[in-house]
């Protein structure tokens, strides 16, 4: 077993353990932390496959930014675990079907040799920066899907703002025009009441 294989198995073991803990941990904060560990390890495995741009991107975007906000929200939630587990058996069939589908898809991808799909030659010659390669492809061949994706993100961003924005702050300036026309009885009410005694 050469060193690279050893590193792969080491990272894979951590990844599987972390992913398992994501769905089994009782404390939601622990689950999120294991998800972060899973992303980080996944980045390591991608770096091992010489996809250094993707490896760094997953750490930068998912582990470094998305999960911070996620953790932020989860830490402030007061989650009652028993109530979440209530519908477990009702949802199990649907979840099992989805899980089977995912296993099937992964099998199709990983077993491409068996299904005689010509495998892409993944090895890149040394000295080719795959950041540059991805950039060139993204802005030439895939420019329309890329722009479309950014448009979808923009729509999402605007939607989030529209949903949470409550209009500009109410102005606290006084209007002299209204002040002039104010009468005493609008502001003050004189009540007649008997004296109270204990």
């Amino acid at each position, binding site marked *: 077993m050469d060193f690279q294989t050893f590193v792969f198995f080491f990272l894979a073991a951590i990844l599987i353990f972390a992913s398992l803990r994501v769905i089994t941990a009782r404390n939601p*904060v622990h689950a999120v*932390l294991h998800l*972060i560990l899973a992303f*980080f390890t996944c*980045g390591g495995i991608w770096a091992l496959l010489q996809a*250094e*741009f993707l490896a*760094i*991107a997953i*750490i*930068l975007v998912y*582990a*470094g*930014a998305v999960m*911070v*906000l996620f*953790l*932020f929200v989860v*830490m402030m939630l007061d989650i009652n675990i028993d109530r979440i587990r209530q519908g477990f058996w009702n949802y199990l069939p649907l979840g099992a079907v989805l899980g089977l589908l995912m296993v099937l898809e992964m099998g199709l991808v990983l077993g491409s040799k068996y299904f005689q799909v010509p495998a892409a030659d993944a090895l890149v010659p040394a000295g080719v*920066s795959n*950041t540059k390669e991805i950039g060139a492809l993204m802005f030439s061949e895939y420019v329309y899907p890329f722009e479309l994706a950014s448009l979808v993100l923009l729509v999402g961003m605007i939607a989030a703002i529209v949903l949470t924005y409550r209009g500009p702050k109410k102005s606290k300036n006084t209007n002299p025009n209204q002040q002039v026309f104010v009468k005493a009885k609008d502001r003050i009410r004189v009540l007649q009441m008997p004296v109270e005694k204990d």
Partner: protein
Amino acid sequence: MDALMNVGQGIFGGAWPAVWTLLKIVLIVAPLMLGVAYLTYFERKVIGYMQVRIGPNRVGPLGLIQPIADGLKLLLKEIVVPSGANKGIFIIAPMLAIAPALAAWAVIPFTDSLVLANIDASLLYIMAITSMGVYGIILSGWASNSKYAFLGAMRSAAQMVSYEVAMGFSLICVLMVSNSLNLVDIVNGQGEGRFAEFGLGFLSWNWLPLLPMFVVYLISGTAELNRAPFDLAEGESEIVAGFHVEYSGMAFALFFLAEYANMILVSALTSIMFLGGWLSPVGFLPDGIVWLLAKMSFVLFLFLWFRATFPRFRYDQLMRLGWKVFVPICLIWLLVVGVWMMSPLNIWK
């Protein structure tokens, strides 16, 4: 050097590359830790003189042994774990704070050959690793089971995520003009240009053509470090000391070390991206690591100067500065640089 390699090969055999890398790591981390210790001394002295005080002057000549004494004191103190704390995370959090601060140094070039790992995407690596530093702070705040610590962690997380955006944009400008993600190439690119040919290298560095980005990077860097005037995360007048209020002894010291190691890291990055790294400012002096250290010291002095000068920002002002001032400036300057590079006036060929 070859003789050393041969001797090492003889003693350790196949394990020599690993041992040699470990040796290099020690050679980077040991001076870094010493630098951190004396940065605290320097900070107290500089701020002392700015406030017409003397600063530490009791331990050793001129108070020079003060940081060592402080470190020893912290080492010998007990680490108290609060009763309601989440113990595992409480102990892991300081480690999560200091690990990225040290790991980022792997790709920092000190001269064009003196670098631990000269990788192609080193700029991206730095951004990815430094973005992990926020977990130490968030988790310490959450695990402490204290309101003050939690408030500090919340503030700090929002602040670091916001300012990372502006910081990333200013670095995108740098990588556009250098046409590379490699820090060594970024510095070498700054050594070329019309002014450099006249022997006035310092006018060819990125700080001049990218002046707005230099300012944005420096200020966002200060915010990212949670340094004054952006130290809302620890605002001692409102939330005691923020996220590390429950920590004592060496666990507290790790947060402290992480903060100062990050300060040195940001000063090194500013020097490399905008101030020409190890390049000499004028043509008749040789390039060398001395210049990098001098530039880093200058940037570090700026951080201390900021702390002594500016009052703390209010939280809404902080968010306004990050999102409504820096991000638009960055977006506009990104466009300006793009158009500039495509026009005949392009100076980065």
